[in-house]
């Protein structure tokens, strides 16, 4: 699915900004930006500003000047020491925890009592920044609880269509050459509430919290497959975990030999139990359910096993009653995390719009942001280096004039895939007939736009455009 951008509305922000500055330098013979800085230049409607505006020094905040009251104290008071500055603080703990003032930055649970069904823990993405999800906040989905695995006793077996079936201990696997790669993991059902025919009023965490990004360290699967000696007639592997359900997925051998890895470390420390300790499969860019946790067995075969999860949950239905199978790829997606539902803007003036973009097909190439519901777009700043199949943070300076606006973002990746506009997405993939439960999964693989409507009171609502 591809879409084209209405060309006349894109502002070539860089050119528009650089040209006048060069002219000024020529005529005046020296840089005078500190003394006579240009105002922040709009690049799109409703106050979106040039993405480079904040990276340079000495640029005057025209918005701040006109709405200065919002950014400065009405009347300053003399400073004095707070209580915590007057005596030594707490004893240093062995394991750090976030400040008690950040106690609300936690995952939300779908099944907190552990009833006999799947447990989802959604990541609080609207309260995080950067591109790495801290391990305690990484989303998890467990279909039969978290097994308490002793790594000394855990075994991984590779068998089936191989020259020599092999059994590995975790200790042995930890001696292999390791690679470290930054990748997102996303549930194939993430963002499913956006299949609702009406926008569900919920946070980024509720709508998109089944995705996270970490730096994973482990052994390339191809290394182990080569040791076992894969039969040339084989075409798939079936991966299986050591959890009670023995969750199992088929993976094309093509992917297994491409960039699949056995991950042991997550952001520098051993995997969290809920993320698959002591070892999980990691298939960069593919739906998270395929990244078999607690990996204990890989069977090399000549056909997909059509396991429960690939046959049922992750075969998305289409409006005509047919269904996709082997969807695998988490396609290019972006959403604004700040501001988003749950935020309330404290008045007109300067804000930075911030969000996350990623693609299971490669690197994020660009992200456009709109503040007028998609009528005009400006290119967001993207933090580098941009890693393939990983979170990319985008930001956009914005001066809000206090009028209602609609913020939205749209991402492109380096495979030329683009986030489909909602109308195109719904035409191709359909939407639910009734508003589903926000925790439900009316369908899978949603990657269209997410839009936030901000009213004149600064309240943020989820809207469709």
């Amino acid at each position, binding site marked *: 699915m591809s879409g084209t951008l209405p060309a006349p509305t894109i502002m070539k922000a860089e050119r528009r900004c650089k040209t006048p500055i060069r002219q000024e330098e020529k005529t005046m013979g020296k840089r005078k930006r500190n003394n006579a800085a240009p105002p922040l230049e709009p690049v799109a409607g409703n106050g979106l500003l040039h993405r480079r505006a904040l990276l340079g020094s000495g640029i005057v905040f025209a918005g701040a000047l006109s709405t200065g009251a919002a950014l400065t104290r009405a009347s300053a008071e003399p400073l004095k020491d707070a209580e915590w500055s007057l005596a030594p603080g707490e004893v240093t703990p062995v394991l750090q925890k976030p400040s008690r003032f950040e106690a609300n930055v936690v995952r939300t649970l779908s099944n907190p009592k552990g009833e006999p069904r799947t447990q989802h823990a959604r990541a609080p993405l609207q309260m995080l920044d950067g591109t790495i999800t801290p391990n305690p906040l990484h989303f998890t989905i467990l279909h*039969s609880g978290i097994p308490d695995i002793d790594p000394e006793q855990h075994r991984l077996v590779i068998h089936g269509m191989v020259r020599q079936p092999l059994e590995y201990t975790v200790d042995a696997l930890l001696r292999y050459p390791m690679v470290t790669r930054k990748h997102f993991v996303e549930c194939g059902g993430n963002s499913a509430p956006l299949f609702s025919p009406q926008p569900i009023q919920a946070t980024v965490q509720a709508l998109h919290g089944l995705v996270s990004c970490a730096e994973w360290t482990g052994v390339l699967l191809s290394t182990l497959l080569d040791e076992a000696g894969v039969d040339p007639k084989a075409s798939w592997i*079936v991966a299986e975990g050591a959890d009670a359900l023995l969750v*199992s997925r088929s993976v094309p051998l093509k992917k297994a030999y491409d960039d699949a890895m056995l991950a042991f470390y997550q952001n520098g420390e051993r995997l969290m139990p809920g993320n698959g300790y002591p070892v999980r499969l990691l298939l960069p860019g593919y739906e998270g359910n395929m990244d078999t946790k607690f990996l204990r067995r890989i069977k090399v075969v000549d*056909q997909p096993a*059509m396991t429960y999860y690939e046959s049922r949950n992750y*075969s998305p239905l289409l409006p005509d009653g047919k*269904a996709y199978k082997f969807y695998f*790829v988490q396609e290019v997606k972006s959403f604004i995390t700040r501001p988003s539902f749950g935020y309330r803007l404290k008045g007109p003036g300067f804000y930075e719009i911030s969000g996350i973009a990623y693609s299971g097909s490669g690197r994020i190439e660009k992200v456009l942001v709109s503040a007028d519901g998609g009528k005009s777009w400006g290119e967001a700043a993207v933090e580098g280096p941009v890693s393939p199949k990983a979170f990319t943070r985008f930001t956009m300076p914005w001066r809000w004039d206090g009028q209602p606006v609609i913020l939205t973002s749209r991402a492109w990746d380096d495979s030329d895939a683009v986030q489909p506009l909602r109308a195109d997405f719904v035409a191709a993939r359909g939407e639910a007939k009734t508003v*589903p439960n926000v925790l439900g999964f009316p*369908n899978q693989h949603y990657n269209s736009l997410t839009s936030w409507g901000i009213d004149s009171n600064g309240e943020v609502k989820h809207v469709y455009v």
Partner: protein
Amino acid sequence: MSTCRPFAAAFIFALALVPAAAIAADTPGLGKPISEADVKAWDVTVLPSGANLPPGHGTPAEGAKLYVDKGCVACHGEGGKGGTSNVLVGRPSLVDGGIAANKTIANFWAWPTTVFDYMRRAMPWPAPRTLSDDEVYALCAYLFAINNLIGENDVMNAQTLPNVKMPNHDNFIVKFPDRI
């Protein structure tokens, strides 16, 4: 870099001591050979071709009794009509239901082997892999029979089960053919 050289030299020396096969593969070779016979207890993967289906058999009548005795009814409801877990009976239209339609064995699942594979590895939820292979065949027979996919006296075994015709078998589109 000079501090690395003695280590590198030691590594090259060490390579001379490892078996030729490991050098040829250029990998550490720390896996222990194991026979397929020793993997068998773990190998519950059943392929759509029927490969790796175990010996054994069961009938719908046997399955109907097991469905109650083994507690399936607690989550899946009487006669598979659904409860806290999935509906197991019925063939509602996927077109009428829209993209959020309930996916059942009869209206959605493409392969009969998926039912056997999943039930054997994962059910009953509180005590997985406590069903005998005969019991799994019987429960499959029961589920296929109440969905009118087989006759009420048909026996399920390694030969008959893979041949059960699933109504929705041909309605799947491979999303990214070049990735397979």
